[in-house]
């Protein structure tokens, strides 16, 4: 079976599995909505100030809620022996990492992107900046999924790897926050966000070409 067909098969299975468990699918999304609602309530800001903070709030919440679902990326499969079967399926582990990470993005990142206009309206981000915001979130959440695949693969053998996973991934995700929030900020103030978006794009390509190999190597160590 070709690598492409294997990726489609694995992605299809991941989607099917998670639609059987809608609660796990919705948790990060609800978390995202709640965190972004907490900021305006807690800070008691005027709308003009809120608008200045909005991109940062939106991006921080997006990063944190993507982290929630990362731990389970390989853990479920490692615990029930599925990972061993996948490793012996004749497909390379790199292909398996690519498929599982793509599915993870579809289920967490893409869902966040779709929910973000709602949050943006609540935070007072003008609709003219939505295009930039959506583009930056697509690139940012993809990059985070790739970075996260390395962290999830490294911590898969640990009993409570959740905190360690955050400690590994969050520092690496700082450029995303800076340039993602920066791009949205610039779009709000009416200057060109192109530079920041290009940088996010290059980060996305950089991680998606290298992370699968790193994560596969980490999984191989776990299986050993």
């Amino acid at each position, binding site marked *: *079976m070709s690598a492409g067909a*294997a990726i489609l*098969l*694995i992605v299809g*299975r991941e989607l*099917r*599995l998670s639609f*059987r*468990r809608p609660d796990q699918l919705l948790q990060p999304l609800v978390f995202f909505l709640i965190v972004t609602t907490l900021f305006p309530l807690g800070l008691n800001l005027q709308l003009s100030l809120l608008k200045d903070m909005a991109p940062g709030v939106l991006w921080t919440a997006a990063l944190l809620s993507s982290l929630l679902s990362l731990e389970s990326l390989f853990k479920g499969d490692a615990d*029930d*022996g*599925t990972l*061993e*079967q*996948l*490793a*012996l*399926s*004749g*497909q390379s582990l790199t292909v398996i990492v690519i498929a599982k990470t793509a599915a993870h993005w579809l289920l967490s990142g893409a869902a966040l992107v779709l929910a973000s206009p709602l949050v943006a309206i609540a935070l007072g981000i003008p609709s003219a900046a939505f295009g930039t915001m959506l583009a930056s979130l697509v690139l940012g959440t993809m990059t985070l999924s790739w970075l996260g695949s390395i962290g999830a693969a490294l911590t898969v053998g640990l009993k409570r790897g959740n905190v360690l996973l955050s400690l590994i991934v969050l520092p690496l995700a700082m450029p995303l926050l800076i340039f993602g929030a920066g791009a949205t900020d610039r779009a709000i103030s009416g200057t060109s966000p192109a530079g920041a978006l290009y940088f996010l794009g290059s980060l996305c390509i950089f991680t998606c070409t290298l992370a699968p190999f790193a994560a596969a190597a980490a999984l191989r160590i776990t*299986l*050993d």
Partner: protein
Amino acid sequence: MNTAAEGLGVEAVHVWRGDRHVLKGLSLEIDPREALHISGRNGSGKTTLLKVACGLLRPEQGRVTWRGRPISEVRSDYQHALAYASHEPALKGDLTALENLRFMVGLKRRSSAAELASCLERTGVASCADLPVRVLSAGQRRRVAMARVLGMRAPLWLLDEPFTNLDAGGSEIFAALIAEHVSGGGMAVVVAHHELVLPTAARRLELPG
């Protein structure tokens, strides 16, 4: 003549787990139409040996060969030729038995739903095909995992404690399936810590504690 050239060969394998020397220079060979029953007390390295044989675990010394070549060189061919059933059934509770099979077998080879359903029938769980695995009993899960081994149509079976949780009828079915596989030209390595009724041709290897 090198007999290992036809099947699986494990050559002088040493494995340490932590600072325990689990496998001390173990060798074995298995050719088509042969079954090997590996026994030994808990902790004697039965599962470790099976994981080394299927390539999940790299031995510190020694090597594993498939048809005369090291498995690292023929990785993809070797993986297509083997069906490994680990101690855990490796099934997803939220998917039905048939979906579980379709996915795992599908990664190795093309198969039709009817064919997979017949595999479930041969292990006696045809009625569970459309039930989510989480509602099945431990013995039924074992039977679904065995149906997956059948579905892969691999010449080499590596089975880790396949008889756990099975009732008497299930043990008979499994032993018959292994016998049928071996007499049809297949190879089977079966780890089991108790006596079992394997085909008469089965060799026995007892791992020292």
